[in-house]
């Protein structure tokens, strides 16, 4: 009898330990932070270069998931959504948009907000708003009240990219904008477009996982 009780207790302890290990492991996993090019002047500046892809492709744990990638200091593309930026700095952002449009549920978010001049450029042309149906993703930092809608590639555009990282000869849109960071801290950013193909309302999977359509700005 005592042996049975001990066995049940030991088994329960092992199951609880495994559950805790799984939950903690799930919560703690995140991509490594990437530090883009930065200069140290009176007003520091940084260059953040990103690309969005419709699907990561082979070689990634979720090959069919939509995702952001970031260019590292050496110019190589990395699969991460955690960016280290200097505090009180002017950040110049370039996004190469290789994904198609899904459209915004809230048209209000199609107006660039919280960026220098309240405008962005799309393929070199200045824009102060985007047709919400043409939005493929957004780059949004709630703490800065920053939202930038990213225009998607036309469905019938030739030479579309299928695997990450995408090269510049593939169909894409180039969006640029600039914003200022504030005091040091950890600020979350996200996409507002329900772009998670195959998930209800497009809000599951990559929209709910850091490393795909969500991440952090480590402002230091």
């Amino acid at each position: 009898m005592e042996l049975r009780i001990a066995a049940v207790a030991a088994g329960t302890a092992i199951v609880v330990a495994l559950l805790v290990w799984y939950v903690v492991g799930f919560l703690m996993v995140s991509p490594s932070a990437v530090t883009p090019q930065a200069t140290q002047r009176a007003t520091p500046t940084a260059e953040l270069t990103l690309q969005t892809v419709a699907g990561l492709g082979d070689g990634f744990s979720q090959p069919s998931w939509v995702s952001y990638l970031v260019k590292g200091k050496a110019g190589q593309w990395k699969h991460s959504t955690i960016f280290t930026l200097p505090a009180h700095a002017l950040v110049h952002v370039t996004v190469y948009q290789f994904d198609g449009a899904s459209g915004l549920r809230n048209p209000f978010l199609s107006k660039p907000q919280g960026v220098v001049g309240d405008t962005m450029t799309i393929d070199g042309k200045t824009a102060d708003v985007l047709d919400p149906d043409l939005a493929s993703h957004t780059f949004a930092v709630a703490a800065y009240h920053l939202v930038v809608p990213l225009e998607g590639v036309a469905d019938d555009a030739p030479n579309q990219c299928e695997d990450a990282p995408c090269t510049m000869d593939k169909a894409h849109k180039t969006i640029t904008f600039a914003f200022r960071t504030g005091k040091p801290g950890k600020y979350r950013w996200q996409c507002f477009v329900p772009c998670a193909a195959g998930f209800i309302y497009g809000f599951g999977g990559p929209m709910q996982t850091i490393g795909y359509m969500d991440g952090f700005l480590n402002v230091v």
Partner: protein
Amino acid sequence: MIFVLGPHLPPGHGSAQAAGQVTDNTVLTAIMTPIICLIVVYFVYALIAFRKRDGDEEDGSAIRGHARAQSLWVAGTSAVVIFLAGYGTWALLQTGSGGGQGPTPINVPKGPKLQVQVIAQQWQFTYRYPSYGGMETSQLVLPADRLIELHVTSLDAIHSFWAYGLGVKADAQLGTDNVVYVKTRGVKSFDIHCAELCGLWHGYMFDTGKVVDASAFTAWIGQQKKIFEPVAKYMPPFSTYYVPEPDRRAG
């Protein structure tokens, strides 16, 4: 209890509804304190008086009912519960107490109201001002000393709009208009949180709102209308709720 602790109870006096909640919390605390004290004191007394002493191997005394004590307890606690139910209903009917009343509110305060729509989405609140052309903003700014009619809704999951400092808390659901009334007081800042687990960034779904004086509010509205004029042509007509189409954009 009422005079010492009462004025410091949450959520403060940032609005008429918040002040009403302070009164409610004071009443509850004042009623419950003697009951809790009675229970705790008797519990400690029982621990000491009926403890097992060294060398005592006999059974404890038999537990027998005491009709008078039991009747007094049942009658007393029933009276408290019935009183609180009545008081709670009365308090709710005064101002709505800052809670969401659904699309057809039972209690509608008299007087002119400023309508403000709260739109929840994963993971940010935005706000529309139908009296000002349906303008939408990402910041909640309210005029001081005004009766505000909040229409709380969602574009996706279930959220909950919680403006603690104003004593306001209302669920935000897709396709539903949840009406809340709040009477602002003086100039202040207040925290806004989502109080319903709504996904990855639920814990980060917070912001700071402001109550400003009338002239500052007018100036702010003018500024926001100018900033967001480019997007006005894409905004849907004001509605008490929205069902974005297509429902399943990427599915």
